């Protein structure tokens, strides 16, 4: 990496930035899921790591969250954008050099940000935990150069139209910058009280809805047609998806605070808009699944399609939960319980992660021009992720329902803790499976770079047979 920092733009091979972002994202996924497993162990057995005062749960919880969101998910997005955007514009990335610097400063910034959270230096606001100097760094050093590369590549494209994936990339990056700067207003302007609480959730809601889920969807809009060879089922349904994200997903922030004393009109409005999230959700899932027509055998045979379509199928329960769990009729029961934790992992570890993993698997093979080292290890990774996630999701959903029932009947809280204990153990096992699966993934990727079979020029990795 270092040798490209001061190289001339034309001497940097295409795809360098994407490869660096891709490798970083896998490394951060290992760190993030490892921390998740570590934290989950403490919830099952609080004295397990007793004596490691430097790794207190209250400090490590948000380090896990931000390692996964900023490290794994965002960097996998960056990797995807750095190779998909130019490919769809039939051009080169606007600046590989900027991309390489961006990746370096991204990693440095993320280490710094996580170290501060680890030390307990926090704004005390969930998801916008970072202190404002770090927020500034994230916005202007980590995100803006990334946006520039995406936007300038699209502007300099050599195609007439812009494909669905690229509208999403450009639009979502713009919304991310706006959401980040506006959502951290409580810190810039020292907003206090309910305004501060509400803006915290305005940020948390929108960063998920306008960055994490739509970019993951945009990636699948590229991967599925590209690998199956089928054209996207409907460009117009893609439009419906995009515009309904902008209009419906940016408005229901208050549904995260349904039991707080926010104005009632705001909660009702947010709740109605929250159900309308089903519009982009249904449009998207139908569009992708219909694109698969006639190629369903690839869901079994092709590892990238297996990951992608699993992610898309997980988006169905995700959006069904998301649309309805925030209505007053259901929210009073499950608010603040493990159900929500399960739902958050369904979005990030289920839908989003599976889509990104496919994109990183595919992108690395294309950019390195190497066939994946081992299909067996990739399948192993897939099943570790899927089974690990499923254990996590099912156990946390059940524990959330227990907690909800106990909340309604006002059962003494310690009885809830006792009842949840077995599910906490299952949660830990699930998280640990994801962690070990990811280590295998990194090994497989390193071996792909070193010893994968060469993919001939003009060929797709999917067209070359596996040798292992």
């Amino acid at each position: 990496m270092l040798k490209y920092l001061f190289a001339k733009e034309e001497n940097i091979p295409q795809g360098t930035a994407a490869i660096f972002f891709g490798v970083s994202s896998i490394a951060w996924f290992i760190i993030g899921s490892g921390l998740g497993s570590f934290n989950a162990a403490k919830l099952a057995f609080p004295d397990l790591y007793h004596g490691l005062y430097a790794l207190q749960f209250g400090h490590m919880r948000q380090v896990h969250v931000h390692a996964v969101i900023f490290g794994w998910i965002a960097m996998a997005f960056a990797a995807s954008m750095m190779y998909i955007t130019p490919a769809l514009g039939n051009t080169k990335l606007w600046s590989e050099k900027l991309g390489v610097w961006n990746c370096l400063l991204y990693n440095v910034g993320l280490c710094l940000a996580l170290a501060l959270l680890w030390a307990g230096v926090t704004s005390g606001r969930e998801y916008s935990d970072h202190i404002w100097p770090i927020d500034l760094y994230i916005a202007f050093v980590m995100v803006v150069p990334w946006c520039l590369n995406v936007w300038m590549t699209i502007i300099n494209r050599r195609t007439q139209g812009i494909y669905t994936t690229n509208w999403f990339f450009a639009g979502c990056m713009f919304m991310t910058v706006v959401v980040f700067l506006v959502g951290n207003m409580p810190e810039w302007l020292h907003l206090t009280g309910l305004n501060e609480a509400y803006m915290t959730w305005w940020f948390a809601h929108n960063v998920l809805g306008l960055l994490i889920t739509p970019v993951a969807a945009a990636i699948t809009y590229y991967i599925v047609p590209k690998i199956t060879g089928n054209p996207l089922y409907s460009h117009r349904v893609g439009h419906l998806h995009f515009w309904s994200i902008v209009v419906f997903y940016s408005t229901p922030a208050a549904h995260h605070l349904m039991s707080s004393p926010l104005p009632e009109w705001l909660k009702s409005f947010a709740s109605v808009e929250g159900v309308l999230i089903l519009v982009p959700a249904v449009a998207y899932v139908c569009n992708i699944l219909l694109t698969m027509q006639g190629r369903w055998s690839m869901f079994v045979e092709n590892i990238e399609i297996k990951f992608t379509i699993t992610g898309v199928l997980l988006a169905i329960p995700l959006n069904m939960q998301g649309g309805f769990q925030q209505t007053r009729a259901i929210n009073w029961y499950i608010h603040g319980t493990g159900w929500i934790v399960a739902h958050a992992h369904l979005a990030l570890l289920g839908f989003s992660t599976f889509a990104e993993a496919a994109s990183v698997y595919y992108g690395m093979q294309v950019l390195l021009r190497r066939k994946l080292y081992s299909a067996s290890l990739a399948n192993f990774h897939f099943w570790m992720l899927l089974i690990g996630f499923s254990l996590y999701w099912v156990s946390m959903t059940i524990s959330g329902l227990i907690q909800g029932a106990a909340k309604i009947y006002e059962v003494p809280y310690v009885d809830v803790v006792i009842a949840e204990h077995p599910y906490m153990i299952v949660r830990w096992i699930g998280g640990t499976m994801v962690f070990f699966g990811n280590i295998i993934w990194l090994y497989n990727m390193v071996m792909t770079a070193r010893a994968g079979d060469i993919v001939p020029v003009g060929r797709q990795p999917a067209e070359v047979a596996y040798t292992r």
Partner: protein
Amino acid sequence: MAFREYKIGCWMFGISLSLSMFITIILPGIDISSMSSTKLALEKQLTYGWETGFNYYDPFLQGKDKPIKVTLTKDPKTGVAIDKTEAYVFPAGTHFPNGLTHDNILGDEVQKASVSLGKIDQASEDKGAVFVVSVTSNDTPYMEYATVTRGWNVDATLKASDEQLMAGSGKTLFVREGCWWCHTLLPEQTQDWQSFGRPPMVGDFNGESPTTFGSDRKAPDLLHVGSRNSSREWMVMHFFNPRLVQPHSIMPRYDFLWGDKDADGKNIDLAAWDEQYFAYAKGESVYPPGVPTPAADSEARMLVDFVLNLK
């Protein structure tokens, strides 16, 4: 951008995003900002002072720059017995909460009463100040700058006090140690009344930051914990090792917040304590080892003060 449609699309995108932000930020902002402070909000502001998350004056969240909440049963100036009164002491240099430094935080009525009756506009951070929360004849709460209205200065008030709570510093530690990842501060409106007490009202938060509602409740709500359990001894044991008082608790131990010395100046040896505790846990001894009393300037004391103050 090659196609006219893209130009139109960019405009549509900008307009819809702006409209969305107008509805979800500007309108709620106007509505929420028009809410008047309750008495509770005034008490919370004066207890917690300026920001309890990261800020210039306490960048590493050590509980610096915070007021002290005191209980008085005699007048600090005259020494005459008075009804039990809570006062908030800001030693010189301690920063004031938002409601004292900005005119639009408290709400019109409360702001007017605080200035005309409470004389808060005369208070300054450099000189230090003592405040109390009072109520007008028509039930409007207001902040009163007691140094001017009652002649209570900082030193005399601290000296005359029966009890001093470092609850503001404790809230900083509550944020730093991530207590709010499991303990919410938001009893829900639809239930929770019996177990966790009254849900907060709309005006209860003015000037408070961060509000640390919490979102993922893995432990009891703490908004009114001081009313349910006001035993300092219980809290001290529970923070040191929650399994001493609740064998099924999954809360981490906070024994490291005691620091090196206990209240008597004796060294605290956590390893030796653990050894005795594990012997007790295995049934080899009848009683667990005793929990050291936190020193007056220890972080453990601040956190216990904060929790006991959550009435």
